């Protein structure tokens, strides 16, 4: 039986308060870290655990921390990316709204390891309730001496500010997020330099996802070995999957990394709604390529999904049954990408608008077979040619859908209506 780490106490209404959190062992890991371990010890333990960032890219967390810790520049900033704006993604929301101290404890331990004195939680603007919960939790942690100017009387100083985004998907990309924190339009920066060396206001900055920070207390208190015994080789630990779409029990599930899509859909989410047939699955949020039903035995992790032509992304599983029109799905998705393109580079700014316009024509029944060729051509000329992953993702997911569901696109053009309806 898999024992949950992150969502273990999520249904306990008391855990949102510091007393409730401490009653289930909260802040013990911080006391242990600050009392018994050096910053180097913690970074080594995180490296040994094999923890990879849970925001989508899957970069090894310990390695990222080490790069920042070796940079002699101060101050060092710690930023929590709580801007989960990828359609389909709502995995961090339960932590933010129901277990905020788990995130805060993870951030304080990380700050101690990195000798950072200032942290920000970049919170998506669409979560007004989470802002209130986090601000209250920060006040509670300050009152208990877990945050502030002399944490646990160890001359360790760290403070956290909650910074609300305002509806810009691109700000989930770490360098655009940093521009936004600096009060600018959120547009991605050229890398290198990477944020670990030159991030917020040009200083070394660690940006980690909410879920990544939520793993830290367990790794410190139980050790890297216990942590890496969960999941699969190269991708250890548990993973939060947010499941939506045509399943009987959508929701957020904490499951071992490497679990198959089939197990998620049929064992945990109760199978397909209304007895429909599975048509396709987006495994990691709308910017990850769709998976055909015959491939749902693929293991859900950063290593295996690329072999099936997709990516784990944020772990946002969207399930489609045979009542769903794939052309309509990608027309709506492309509207999203067009709306959210920051405008910095031409292939993304113009390409997403062009692809959306063609998809609208197909959906409306006004398209010719040549439009399908043009759509394919535009997508191929956007993929791999944009400044950041937004445009690349938009084109990539469309190409995957056109490959797997080619017949459905052609049917739409020929019959001027959807096959699924």
């Amino acid at each position, binding site marked *: 039986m898999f024992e949950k780490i992150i969502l273990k106490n999520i249904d306990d209404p008391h855990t949102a308060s510091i007393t409730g959190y401490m009653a289930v062992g909260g802040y013990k890991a911080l006391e242990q870290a600050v009392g018994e371990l050096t910053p180097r010890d913690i970074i080594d333990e995180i490296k040994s655990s094999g923890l990879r960032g849970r925001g989508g890219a899957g970069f090894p967390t310990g390695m990222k921390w080490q790069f920042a810790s070796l940079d002699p520049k101060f101050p060092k900033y710690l930023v929590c990316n709580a801007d989960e704006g990828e*359609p389909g*993604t709502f995995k961090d929301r339960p932590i933010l709204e129901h277990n905020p101290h788990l995130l805060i404890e993870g951030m304080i331990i990380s700050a101690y390891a990195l000798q950072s004195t200032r942290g920000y939680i970049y919170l998506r603007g*669409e979560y*007004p309730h989470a802002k209130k919960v986090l601000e209250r939790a920060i006040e509670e942690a300050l009152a208990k001496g877990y945050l502030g100017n002399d944490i646990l009387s160890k001359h360790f100083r760290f403070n956290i500010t909650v910074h*609300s985004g*305002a509806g810009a998907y691109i700000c989930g990309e770490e360098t655009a997020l940093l521009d936004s924190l600096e009060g600018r339009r959120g547009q991605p920066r050229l890398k290198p330099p990477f944020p670990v060396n030159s991030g917020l206001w040009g200083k070394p900055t660690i940006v980690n996802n909410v879920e990544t920070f939520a793993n830290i207390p367990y790794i410190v208190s139980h050790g890297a070995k216990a942590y890496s015994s969960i999941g699969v080789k190269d991708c250890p630990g548990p993973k939060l999957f947010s499941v939506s779409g045509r399943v009987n029990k*959508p929701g957020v599930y904490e499951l071992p990394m490497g679990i198959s899509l089939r197990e998620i859909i049929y064992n945990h989410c109760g199978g397909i709604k209304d007895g429909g047939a599975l048509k396709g699955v987006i495994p990691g949020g709308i910017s990850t390529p769709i998976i055909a039903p015959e491939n749902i035995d693929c293991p859900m992790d950063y290593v295996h999904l690329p072999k099936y032509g997709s990516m784990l992304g944020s772990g946002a599983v969207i399930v489609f049954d045979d009542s769903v029109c794939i052309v309509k*799905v990608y027309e*709506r998705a492309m509207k999203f990408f067009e709306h*959210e393109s920051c405008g910095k580079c031409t292939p993304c700014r113009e390409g997403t608008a062009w692809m959306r316009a063609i998809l609208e024509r197909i959906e409306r029944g006004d398209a010719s077979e040549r439009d399908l060729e043009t759509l394919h051509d535009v997508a191929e000329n956007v993929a791999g040619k944009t400044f950041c992953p937004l445009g690349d993702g938009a084109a990539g997911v469309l190409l995957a859908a056109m490959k797997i569901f080619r017949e459905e696109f052609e049917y739409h053009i020929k019959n001027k209506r959807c096959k699924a309806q």
Partner: protein
Amino acid sequence: MPQVTADRLRLLRTTVCDLMGLYASRQGVLLPSLSAAEEIFGFVSPEAIEEVSSVTGVPTAEIRGVATFYAMYKTKPMGRHIIQLCTNVSCMIEGAYDLVAYLEEKYGLTPGGTTSDGRFSLIIMECIGACGTAPAMILDTDSYDNLTKDRLDTVLENYK
């Protein structure tokens, strides 16, 4: 819609000054300052932009550029209550566009518009992180999910 008064402008100025200590640059306070302007005036008014500019030293054109980049800042007066309804993929396949049509049919409310009595404005959202309980919306700062036409009617009744 709150009037632009000297008192309210002073409140915005005080709020922006208080935020200064939290960021390493004056420009860093722009996003929370724009949020504060919205809370005080109901939208990011030209007067609010002038006030934020005078405190931070950031040119008004730059502030307008920031304010219009982000989808959630309102740069024009809105209705008393703001419906932010998601129509992205997970909400779409669970019927969000039927709700958009229903809002137009029953309340005369179109995306980006305001009802003639000024009660509601409607904004179409690009995901609000409630995909598992789709279709969903934020009404002012409250979240509502598993929406149907009936449930929508019931919820809206509570916002006069």
